[in-house]
């Protein structure tokens, strides 16, 4: 794969919360601390370097970008105080905005819009709640049409639906 350096990309990452990206001096402490790197092809240090080098297309379309669980082990240990999770989140935001989103993730996003929660309520849990003496429907946006309307307005104002390509 040929790298296509795109320095605007670094600035985009910085503008999206990844201010510390240029502090990285490639020591590899992050990779060594990463539980995901033990199970997958994902290498934290490499991703940060790809960000520094402006490798936009290569990084935004890679599965590796989504193998981080946001566990913060790397961030805790980085000797340069690089906010690695913030950089990864910035890159993921850019990936989603450019139409790179996985189906499983889209489902979670759709559930949030539809229910105001990442998972829907169902009859079984209603029964379990009732048996425990809890309200069948928890007192959240699920129990109030007005609250859900307000929540929808927030979603509309941030343009979430469009962002996730709905």
């Amino acid at each position, binding site marked *: 794969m040929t790298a296509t350096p795109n320095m605007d990309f670094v600035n985009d990452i910085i503008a999206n*919360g990844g201010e510390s990206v240029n502090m990285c001096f490639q020591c590899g402490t992050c990779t060594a601390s990463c539980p995901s790197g033990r199970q997958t092809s994902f290498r934290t240090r490499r991703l940060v370097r790809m960000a520094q080098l402006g490798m936009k297309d290569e990084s935004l379309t890679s599965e590796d970008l989504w193998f981080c669980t946001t566990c913060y082990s790397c*961030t805790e240990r980085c000797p340069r105080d690089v906010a690695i999770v913030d950089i990864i989140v910035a890159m993921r935001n850019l990936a989603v905005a450019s139409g790179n989103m996985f189906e499983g993730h889209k489902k979670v996003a759709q559930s949030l819009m539809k229910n105001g929660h990442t998972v829907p309520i169902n009859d079984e849990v209603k029964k379990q709640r009732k048996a425990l003496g809890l309200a069948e429907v928890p007192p959240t946006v699920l129990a109030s049409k007005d609250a859900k309307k307000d929540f929808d307005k927030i979603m509309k104002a941030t343009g979430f639906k469009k962002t996730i390509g709905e």
Partner: protein
Amino acid sequence: MAKAKYAFFLGCIAPLRYPGIEKSTRDVCAALGIDLVDFNDASCCPAPGVIRSFDRKTWIAAAARNLALAEKAGVNILTICNGCYGSLFDAAHELHEDPELLKEVNKILAEIGLEYKGGTTVRHFAEVIYNDVGMDKVKKAVKNPLDLKVATFYGCHFLKPSDIKALDDPENPSMLDKMVEATGASSMYRKDKMMCCGAGGGLRSEFSDYAMKFTEENLKNMKDGGAEVIVDICPFCHLQFDRGQQELKGYSMPVLHLSQLYALALGMDKKELGLDAHLTPVKL
């Protein structure tokens, strides 16, 4: 210190998949003198690993709505989930540190007649028990001392990022172990105790096989360390271990949220713990 009132922030997984965690929290708080009120109209926190990864602006705006609702009601927030704690605590911190961001977010909140002034404190159930109730009081309240070998599971977003959370040593913490031992149970040593469960960051929702590898490594270390039950403080870690064991072979380790362990120790009826929602049978 005046007795604080907390709005009980439910989140998603506890009320909608493990209602026993919600019930146990309500009972344990009542027994230990933590004053909970219902948090009406809240939404998902929203989840830091997925929603924040998709769109930071949506994440912080929806989190700010939750923070503003609590502020309007004049109460602070109590969560029982590391994801909710991570989102709401981190969002409150960012809004506190960045007045420009707060202004931007308030423009969005103005559309629903809300404003966030920055006054909501976000706390985790486990930390309130440890720091405010204290272990002496817990020990005195135990009616049913537990003889269990426990693998404590802190999860990630409770202690980290530690520069803003500042609750305990993120590499070698002891809070949860002490909380578990206050019930009479033993916290068992194991390798790689602080390893992530694998569910977060959207890994479970899209790359479940990889998430499961994290889970299996944790389970192996727990078993090797002699544990017979897992005690977590996050419904998402809880779900990953409880459901994950149904997919993996060779493991059947009951999973309890700290609230459920405490409900047991404080002498509440087992039926009140909502254990029928667990896929890995809880035989204690």
